[in-house]
C-alpha cells in the first residue's frame, strides 16, 4: 500500500512541485551474446525494446546500463552510439540492464500540463450538468487522485489502487501548502515551490498516510 508520487500544478497548467515518494525499480540485468535477439530502437533520446519480450524484459523497457556502467541517453558512457555498439560482435558478451525508464524533469513537466488539459476536457465532455474535472483516474497498477482548489491549483497524488484515505491526504497537502508555501514571504504565487518546511511536512504526511492506510481527520 504505497503512495508513488505527488505533483502540484498551478492555474496555468505548469508543474510547480514534484516529489517521488516510492519509485519501484523493475530492472533486469542479463548477459547476452551476439546476435542480440531483442529488437531495439531509438526513441526520445533513449534506446528501448521494441520487440522480443523475454525473461522480465518487456516492450518499452529502456537500456539502463551496459556492463555495469550507466548509459547516457542513446550513447554509452564513453560517448559511442549504443545501437552501433550492439551491432559489433567484438564487444560481446555484454551484460545489459533493462528497466522502465525514469521520467526526466522535462517529461514530468509535459505530463503535468497534459493532465491539466485532460482535466478540463473531462469536465467539458460531461453528460451531467455541473461536473468537475477528472478527480480520479484508475488503471490496473495505480490510481491518480486530483484535487483542484478554488484558486485553480491542482494537487495530484499517484498511489496504489488499494490505498484509501487519499481524499483526506489531498486536503492535508493543501493545508501544508497554505501553511508552508503561501505563508512563506519569499514564495511567489504560481512559482515552483522551494520551501524546506513544505518538503518536510509533506514527507511526514505521506508517511502517516501510508502507515495508517487511512488518513484520519484532525492530524
Amino acid at each position, binding site marked *: 500500500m504505497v503512495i508513488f508520487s505527488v505533483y502540484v500544478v498551478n492555474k496555468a497548467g505548469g508543474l510547480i512541485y514534484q516529489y517521488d515518494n516510492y519509485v519501484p525499480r523493475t530492472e533486469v540485468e542479463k548477459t547476452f551474446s551476439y546476435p542480440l535477439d531483442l529488437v531495439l530502437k531509438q526513441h526520445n533520446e533513449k534506446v528501448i525494446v521494441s520487440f522480443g519480450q523475454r525473461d522480465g524484459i518487456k516492450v518499452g523497457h529502456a537500456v539502463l546500463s551496459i556492463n555495469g556502467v550507466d548509459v547516457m541517453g542513446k550513447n554509452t558512457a564513453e560517448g559511442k552510439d549504443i545501437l552501433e555498439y550492439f551491432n559489433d560482435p567484438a564487444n560481446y558478451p555484454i551484460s545489459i540492464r533493462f528497466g*522502465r525508464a525514469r521520467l526526466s524533469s522535462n517529461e514530468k513537466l509535459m*505530463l503535468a500540463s497534459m493532465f491539466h488539459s485532460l482535466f478540463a476536457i473531462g469536465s467539458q*465532455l*460531461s*453528460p451531467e450538468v*455541473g*461536473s468537475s474535472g*477528472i478527480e480520479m483516474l484508475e488503471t490496473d497498477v495505480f490510481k491518480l487522485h486530483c484535487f483542484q482548489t478554488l484558486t485553480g491549483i491542482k494537487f495530484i497524488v*499517484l498511489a496504489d489502487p488499494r490505498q484509501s484515505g487519499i481524499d483526506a491526504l489531498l486536503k492535508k497537502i493543501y493545508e501544508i501548502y497554505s501553511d508552508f508555501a503561501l505563508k512563506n514571504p519569499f514564495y511567489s504565487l504560481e512559482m515552483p515551490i522551494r520551501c524546506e518546511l513544505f518538503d518536510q511536512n509533506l514527507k511526514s504526511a505521506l508517511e502517516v498516510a501510508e502507515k495508517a492506510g487511512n488518513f484520519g481527520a484532525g492530524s
Partner: protein
Amino acid sequence: MTVHNLYIFDPNGNCLFYNEWNRKKQAGISKEEEFKLMYGMLFSIRSFVSKMSPLDMKDGFLSFQTSKYRLHYYETPSGLKFVMNTDLSVSNARETLQHVYSNLYVELIVKNPVCTSTQTLDSELFSSRLDSFIKSLPYYSPRAA
C-alpha cells in the same frame, strides 16, 4: 443509478456507434467534434498513463471519475474502443463492456457479411439488442424526466 451514453470507436478514431440514454447536458459542440474530442482525450490519457505508470501495466487505463460521472473504458486487442459514461454508483463496468464486445458486437456486426466495420454501424438488430441489454443492467434505471 444510470448509464448516460456509450461510444464505440474503431482503431483509426472513427466513431462507429453512439447512443445515449440519460444524458442531461450536451457538450456544446457538434456530434462529430464531440467524437473527435472524446477519441483525442482517450488517446492522450492512454499515452499519459503509459508514461506516468510506475510499474508495467497489463490492462492499462480502466476508468476515470469526476464529481458527477464516471467514464469506463475497454479496448480490445484489435484496437476497438468501448467507452461508457455512467453515474458514480457504478464502480466496474469492464465486464459489461466485454459483454457488449463479445456477445453483441462480434456476434451481430463482425459476423454480419453486410456490415463493413469501418463505417458507422448500421445494424438495427445491434442497436435494439444493445438497448435492451443496457436497460436490463442492474444499475440502469430510467430517471423521471
